[in-house]
C-alpha cells in the first residue's frame, strides 16, 4: 500500500489506486505494451483493455475508470500478471478497482457486485459458502427466466449428492463476525 504522492501534493487518482492495493503493485511502471489485453481470456468482452484502463487511471479519468466493466470481466486467471514485462500485479489492480467502484457506486451492471455480495452474506452468516442458497437467490434476482433451464442441473447436483439443502455453520461464527466487523471499521477509516 505504497503511496506515491510526495508530501504536500494532492494525491492523484493513480496514487489513490496504488494505495488501495496491498503490497507493491508496480502499477506506475506500466509501459503501455498491451501484453495484458492480448493475454486476457475475457478481453473481447471488456469495454477497455487493461492497458487502456491503466492509461485512463494515469490521466485521472476517475469516473470512467470506475464505471468500466473491465474489472468485472476479469476472471482472475493471472495470465496478464505473469506475462507483464514490468511485473505489474494486474489481477490485484482489478480487485482494488472493483472495491473502489463498489464504494463509489459507479459500476453500470450490478450482476457481478450483487453475486459477490450474496456470496459474502452467506459467509458472514455461516462462516461457510452455501451453493444452493447462492445460486437460487442470485438467479431469482438477476435471471429468473433462466431458472427453469437450470433446474435439471440443480436437481442433478442434489441427486448426485453434490449440493447441501441446508447451510453449515462454523462454531466460531461469533469470533469470525467480530474479526470482520473490526476489519470493516479499519477499512472505512482508510
Amino acid at each position, binding site marked *: *500500500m505504497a503511496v506515491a504522492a510526495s508530501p504536500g501534493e494532492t494525491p492523484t487518482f493513480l496514487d489513490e489506486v496504488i494505495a*488501495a492495493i*496491498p*503490497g*507493491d503493485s508496480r502499477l506506475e511502471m506500466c509501459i503501455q505494451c498491451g501484453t495484458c489485453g492480448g493475454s486476457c*481470456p*475475457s478481453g473481447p*468482452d471488456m469495454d477497455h483493455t487493461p492497458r487502456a484502463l491503466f492509461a485512463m487511471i494515469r490521466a485521472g479519468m476517475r469516473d470512467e475508470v470506475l464505471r468500466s466493466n473491465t474489472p468485472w*470481466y476479469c*476472471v*482472475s*486467471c*493471472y*495470465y496478464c*500478471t*505473469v506475462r507483464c514485462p514490468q511485473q505489474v500485479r494486474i*489481477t490485484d489492480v482489478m*480487485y*482494488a478497482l*472493483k*472495491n473502489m467502484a*463498489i464504494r463509489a457506486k459507479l459500476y453500470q451492471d450490478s*450482476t*457481478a*457486485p450483487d*453475486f*459477490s455480495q450474496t*456470496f*459474502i452474506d452467506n*459467509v458472514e452468516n455461516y*462462516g*461457510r*459458502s*452455501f*451453493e444452493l442458497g447462492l445460486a437460487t437467490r442470485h*438467479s431469482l434476482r438477476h435471471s429468473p427466466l*433462466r431458472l427453469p*433451464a*437450470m433446474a435439471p*442441473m440443480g436437481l*442433478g447436483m442434489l441427486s*448426485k*449428492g*453434490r*449440493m*447441501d439443502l441446508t447451510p453449515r455453520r*462454523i462454531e*466460531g461464527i461469533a*469470533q*469470525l463476525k*467480530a*474479526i*470482520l*466487523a*473490526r*476489519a*470493516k471499521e*479499519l*477499512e472505512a477509516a*482508510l
Partner: protein
Amino acid sequence: MRYLYYPGCSMDASAKSYLDSLLAIRDALGLELEEIRDWNCCGATEYFSVSLLPAYALVSRNLALAARQANGCNTVVASCSACYLNLAKTEHYLREDKALNEKVNTALAAGGLDYKPGSLEVRHLLDIIYHDVGLEAVKRNVVQPLKGLRVAPYYGCLIPRPDYDHRYSNHEYPTELDKLMKALGAEVVDFPLKSHCCGGHMTQISAPVAYELIRRLLHSATEYRADIIATLCPMCQLNLDAYQGEMNRYFRTDYRVPVLFFTQLIGLAFGKDAKALGIGREFVDARPALARIGVEVAVEEALARRVRRPKEELPMPRMPQEE
C-alpha cells in the same frame, strides 16, 4: 507425512468425489491430513472483489487457527485451487506489506487470535503428491495401470499462477500433473490449453463468457482425442462437467468429455473401488471412457442419462462436435 489440511467448502458439496477419492488414497500415499479445526470459507474470488481488508482478515482467521494447531507441522495443504491461492496469497502479502499485516492482526485480535507471517507454508495437494510423496512411491502403488486411457491434464489458473513461492515448473505450461498421470500408466495428451481459464464464477454472472471458455477447453481436449480430462480444482470440475450440457445447448454442440479429479484417477490405478472414489457423481458419464481400460462401474439405475435435444429442432442427424 503430517499436514494441516484445509478442505474448503466445495469438498463437502459439489466436489464430494474429490474428498471421497482423496480419503481413499491417502493411506497408500502415506499422507496424514489433520483438518484445521473450525476453518471458515476462504472467500473465493467474491470477498476480495468487494472489500479487501475484511477478505484478508477472513482468510487470516484460517491461518491463525492453523498456526495454533500446528504442533511442529507448519505446512497447510489445500485441495481446491481457489482456497490454495487465497491462503498462499494472504500469507505472502502479510509478509510483504507491514501495514496490511498490522491491520489484519488488529482485526484478528477482536476474535482473540493473532498470526505471525511466515509461520506457515501453504501448498496445493498436487505439489505434496508430486514433491513429497514422489512419483516412485506413486508407481509402487499402481496395481491397475491406466494403460490406453488418453488423459488431458488440466491445471486451471490458480495453481501455476501467480505461484508466489515458485513451486511449479512453468506458469503457463506446467508438467507436474502430466508426469503424475504418466506414472499411473495413462497416455498423456500434450494439452495446449492445460492452464487456461474454466470461466470461474462467470457461469453465474455472464454465462456466455463462461460457455465460450468451457467450449474452447472441451474442443481442444476433443481435438487431441482425450478420453478424459483430469482436474485439480472443484470450480474447474464443476464448470467443465456440470455446465457441459448448458454449454452444448448454447452453442448447439455435442461435446461429451468426462471430467474427473486427478485423485479419482490415482485411486483407479491403485485398484480402489470406483464407487468409493465417487465415480458416478459426474454429469458427463465417465463409464464409457473407463470401460476402455477395463474398469467396470456398478451404478444404480437412477443415474442413467436421458439424451436431450433442443426443443425447437426436429431430431435430425448431426455431425458430431459440429461447430
